[in-house]
């Protein structure tokens, strides 16, 4: 077994909502005791419908939000963002890529500045070196040096997602959280971005936590799969196990609901229609 990069033990997150003139205060249990561990260079996919707590879990892993209970370990070190002194060194280990490439880039910031900003804030590298690293990263994600001085509106959705990935990789994180990174993209562009993620994983030994609701994508990219339902992890295992023999009813419902694009299922559907 390889080195564990990120581990969660019984993580919970409660939100207190209401308590105004209009509604009584109540507690929403967004994440209810979820445990997981991801080895270096592997991908954990978290699947579930909207409101199941998968993005809340992503925020906790990314150290944006604190868990209410449970323990989070990053490269063996216990992290609690409410207590620990959060050093830049810890923050640098985890980066996130968001779903909407149109909303996650500042429209008034040039791409070069987007990529150099993490270095400016977190390191004391001189400007010339920052520039060099940003150029290097641009070519790594399949863009070119000519894109350095352009603004986000000059790029397509797929290119913007490449920029968002490049920005996340500038500080050489060991863990990358991808929150629905390809949901907003066209099929052919989705294929390119998924390939890029695989290439980068091989090159930098990156660990991914990949959040998605698309089972076809998950089956393609994941090593381990966690299915969440109302804040609980109802299914957790290797990809092959989960897809071959789903145990929980919700997982079975999810699989049954996923549209199938293979010839046999089309034949079966047409035959059924004819009979009706």
């Amino acid at each position, binding site marked *: 077994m390889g080195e564990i990069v990120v581990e969660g033990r019984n993580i919970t997150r409660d939100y207190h909502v209401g308590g105004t003139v209009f509604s009584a205060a109540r507690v929403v249990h967004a994440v209810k005791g979820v445990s997981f561990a991801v080895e270096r260079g592997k991908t954990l996919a978290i699947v579930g*419908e909207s409101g199941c707590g998968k993005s809340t879990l992503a925020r906790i892993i990314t150290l944006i939000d604190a868990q209410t209970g449970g323990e989070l370990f990053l490269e063996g070190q216990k992290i609690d963002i409410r207590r620990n002194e959060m050093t830049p060194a810890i923050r640098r280990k985890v980066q996130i890529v968001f779903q909407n490439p149109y909303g996650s880039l500042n429209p008034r910031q040039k791409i070069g500045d987007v990529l150099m900003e993490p270095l400016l804030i977190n390191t004391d590298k001189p400007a010339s070196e920052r520039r060099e690293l940003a150029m290097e990263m641009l070519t790594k994600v399949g863009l070119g040096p000519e894109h350095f001085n352009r603004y986000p509106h000059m790029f397509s959705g797929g290119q913007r997602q490449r920029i968002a990935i490049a920005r996340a990789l500038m500080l050489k994180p060991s863990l990358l959280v991808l929150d629905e990174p390809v949901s907003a993209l066209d099929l052919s*562009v989705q294929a390119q971005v998924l390939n890029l993620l695989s290439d980068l994983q091989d090159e930098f030994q990156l660990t991914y936590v990949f959040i998605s609701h698309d089972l*076809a994508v998950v089956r393609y990219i994941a090593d381990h799969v966690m299915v969440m339902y109302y804040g609980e992890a109802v299914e957790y295992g290797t990809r092959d196990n989960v897809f071959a023999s789903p145990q929980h009813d919700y997982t079975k419902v999810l699989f049954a609901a996923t549209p199938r*694009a293979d010839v046999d299922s089309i034949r079966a559907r047409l035959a059924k229609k004819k009979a009706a």
Partner: protein
Amino acid sequence: MALLEIKNLVVEFQTASGPFRAVNGVSLAVSEREVLAIVGESGSGKSVSMLAVMGLLPWTARVTADTMSFAGRDLLKISPSERRKIIGKDIAMIFQEPMASLNPCFTVGFQIEETLRFHLGLDRAQRRARAIELLKAVGIPQPEERLSSFPHQMSGGQCQRVMIAIAIACNPKLLIADEPTTALDVTIQKQILDLLVGLQAKYGMGLIMITHNMGVVAETADRVIVQYKGRKMEEADVLSLFEAPKHPYTKMLLSALPENATGDRLPTMKGFVLDEASVPGAA
């Protein structure tokens, strides 16, 4: 005879840098009791061609076609007031964002009854009875109470059901669904697709399903049109399209599906150049 027939449709938008062709010579026909899927990536002109049929394009658009007829009526020559009598009654459309396409200021019941009042002229009691019947047909529990709900009090899936209820209110002959399930979870998507196909079979409607999702195509369509950059690339019945795609673009699109992945990398569109000679109907 085809219900909707379009020949050589061209839609151009006036932009600062000259006219932009969003739809370039698309021909299609859909009959009663038929499910036609139009599939393509963003910018392929699949929505624009249907908006042209509905007459919902902004004034900057210039629509030309050799034929555009619905149930024997020429949609190109029809006056706007005549068109308004057809749109919403005989042709209805469902849009992608259910939350955004309902008016947040009015109750669900009001919005369903508005259609019934305008097109069918039913009285108050009849409208209410029909609205309850419609909400039942689209599978909303406790329809009597739901009539006085506002859109924000319902989930995305339920809003889409209300949209479908409005669309089928006047028993349309043709239903156009523009990405009806894109904003929904897979389990809800399944329910909505089953509902649409069920209603289509029950009422014998023609159904045009606009989507970018090959899975949705495979689950619903009888016949498929593949569009790319405003052109029609391929038209085939659903089985032959998935079994033996003819056009290179269709092949590429199907091989980019993650479920069809063979190696550890997906084939991509990189280097795909549209061969003009391969476009059907191109001179």
